[in-house]
């Protein structure tokens, strides 16, 4: 029983990280029809800069951790906004080429990170409390899982409030629904595009810092590995759906954890099988609009 509880919490914690990556991907695809292959790079940059700041200010202090989250989010936001303005926006309405540009950016940036920070993982430890465990129903759950879940919950709440309550949120929602109509109404969707990329970058940057604590290290491949799972989450959840991304993140992470523990480490395969099953039965994903 305690194992199940532990797997549940670790699974939801991992799901929180998947959500932070997948939510941005899903919003970007929903509004712009761009599958952003550079999204993992936003995450890696956030993780690396967060790591640098934390090690300057003291990695084991709460100030250092808070500063690393802030810097990670900021780095992701700036990188994402620049990517959108300088690369993606110039290829207006040429979706395949937009995807190709992000593929190239992903390759180049990962190589650059390799050069700057080296290919070996950089090990990281947060405040002592995060390394300890909390006793819940007989299971010792590592505390960093709770931090990941809390941050992802806040990001979800923030995104929902932003999309539901603000003018730009309304434009983005309308754009996901019918972009041509929004453009026809004379609203400049381009600002909305940059905004969606920036929001995705913030979430990915936060996800990077939290992932580095979850896995205990930072490396240039961290983002690319998480990106593949984020893709799978996005497709299972339904491209463009925030709720779908949230549900699918937890579902995929739980399946992965349980299959890894009970089915001889076949978590990654189980996730791919789930993807195949979902696509064969509901090609548009769990929460996708119309099949």
């Amino acid at each position: 029983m305690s194992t199940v509880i532990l797997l549940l919490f670790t699974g939801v914690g991992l799901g929180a990280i998947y959500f932070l990556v997948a939510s941005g991907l899903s919003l970007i695809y929903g509004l712009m029809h761009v599958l952003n292959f550079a999204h993992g790079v936003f995450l890696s940059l956030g993780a690396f800069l967060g790591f640098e700041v934390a090690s300057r200010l003291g990695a084991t202090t709460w100030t250092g951790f808070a500063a690393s989250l802030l810097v990670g989010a900021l780095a992701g936001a700036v990188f994402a906004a620049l990517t959108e303005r300088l690369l993606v926006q110039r290829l207006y309405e040429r979706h395949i080429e937009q995807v190709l540009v992000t593929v190239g950016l992903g390759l180049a940036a990962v190589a650059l990170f390799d050069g700057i920070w080296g290919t070996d993982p950089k090990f990281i430890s947060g405040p002592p409390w995060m390394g300890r465990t909390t006793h819940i129903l007989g299971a010792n759950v590592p505390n960093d899982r709770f931090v990941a879940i809390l941050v992802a919950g806040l990001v979800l709440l923030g995104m929902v409030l932003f999309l539901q309550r603000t003018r730009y949120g309304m434009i983005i929602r309308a754009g996901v629904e019918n972009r041509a109509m929004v453009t026809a109404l004379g609203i400049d969707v381009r600002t909305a595009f940059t905004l969606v990329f920036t929001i995705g970058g913030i979430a990915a940057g936060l996800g990077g810092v939290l992932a580095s604590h979850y896995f205990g290290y930072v490396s240039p491949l961290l983002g690319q590995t998480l990106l593949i799972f984020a893709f799978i989450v996005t497709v299972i959840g339904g491209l463009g759906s925030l709720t779908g991304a949230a549900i699918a993140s937890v579902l995929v992470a739980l399946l992965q954890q349980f299959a890894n523990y009970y089915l001889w480490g076949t978590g990654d395969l189980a996730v791919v099988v789930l993807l195949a099953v979902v696509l064969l039965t509901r090609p548009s994903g769990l929460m996708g609009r119309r099949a």
Partner: protein
Amino acid sequence: MSTSATDTAYPQGARAWVGRLVPLALVVLLACLPLLNLHLPGVLPGPTYTPGTLHLLALAMVMAALALSYHLLLGVAGLLSFGHALYFGFGAYLLGIVMSELELGLVPSVLLVLLAGVAFSLALGAVSLRVTGIPFAMVTLAFAQAGSVLVRRDPGRVTGGEEGLRLPTDYVPAALVGVADTRNLYWLALAALVLTFLLVSWVQGSRAGHVAEAVRENELRVRVLGMRPFLVKLAIFVAASVIAIGMGMVHLLLNSGAVPHIVSAELTISLLLMVVIGGVGSRWGAVAGAVLYVLLNQRLTVLAQAEWVHDLPAPLRIPLSEPMFILGTLFVLVVMFLPGGLAGTVTRLRGARHRGSGDQRPGAERLEDVDDDQQAAPVGGARP
């Protein structure tokens, strides 16, 4: 496409003649390279008869053939696959496994792998092609990822895990083993490339190829005409996959082994790079893009280890010592400023010379065709 009726018979005949003679001369020249002592400093690592250079050229030709098979998917049928490396790796790994586990000779093993490959690609293609556009890219990526995980996990100790698989040399003819026989492997790679080029040209020019191009343009119209797009796309998918499997087998022989990298998503992305740099929709573009990619990759790796690079200040040293950084940047620049890649640029320059003679920027238009397909069939794409 662009040969207009106003052309007189003579120049047209001459052009067709030249069009056939130039590739033939090129193949003859390439076939003679191992017997010649040519130096191309800066491009090739040494004289053309040395094993190192021949190995590099053979690798470039295998990649060119693989890029041609990817051209069938993306350029002809408009299918953006992120899992083509799966079939390449399937060929390489399965050939090694069949030879060592079943203790069969090279020729029966190759036939067996090809047969298995048809069944394998037929099954996976039938599942993947249930969706189109971006979801198709994702499903193929997921399948390839599963294959990559399997190979790395080494089930039954047959793939060698991260270490990779060694070529079971006992079952391979002696003429194809060892550094001294790089010449023979080079000729094998050249033959494979020529065969692939002819095969791809034939598939593209066949009825199925034409229907696939029509499906890329407008799937609904093809359906209305009473044809079944699914079967045509599946046929193209299987053809491309089987060619990739064949090239995987050549690659196993050439490198005397297989490593997990050849099943990875990175390899598929490299293929995409080659085809896009060369120009989507052009067979020669795919070949040129692949050769350029392999040579650049090799040269940039050499550059990264050069003495003078190590003495540079960090902001210059780091980018210069990462080949993938330079290739990735080059790719971004091509996509942004050279739509249609190399082939498209050549066509455009030619178009500027004989003004009004035909289609400019073929590659760019083809990319947009792929795109239209996605727009017409959004998420899911299953039409009633």
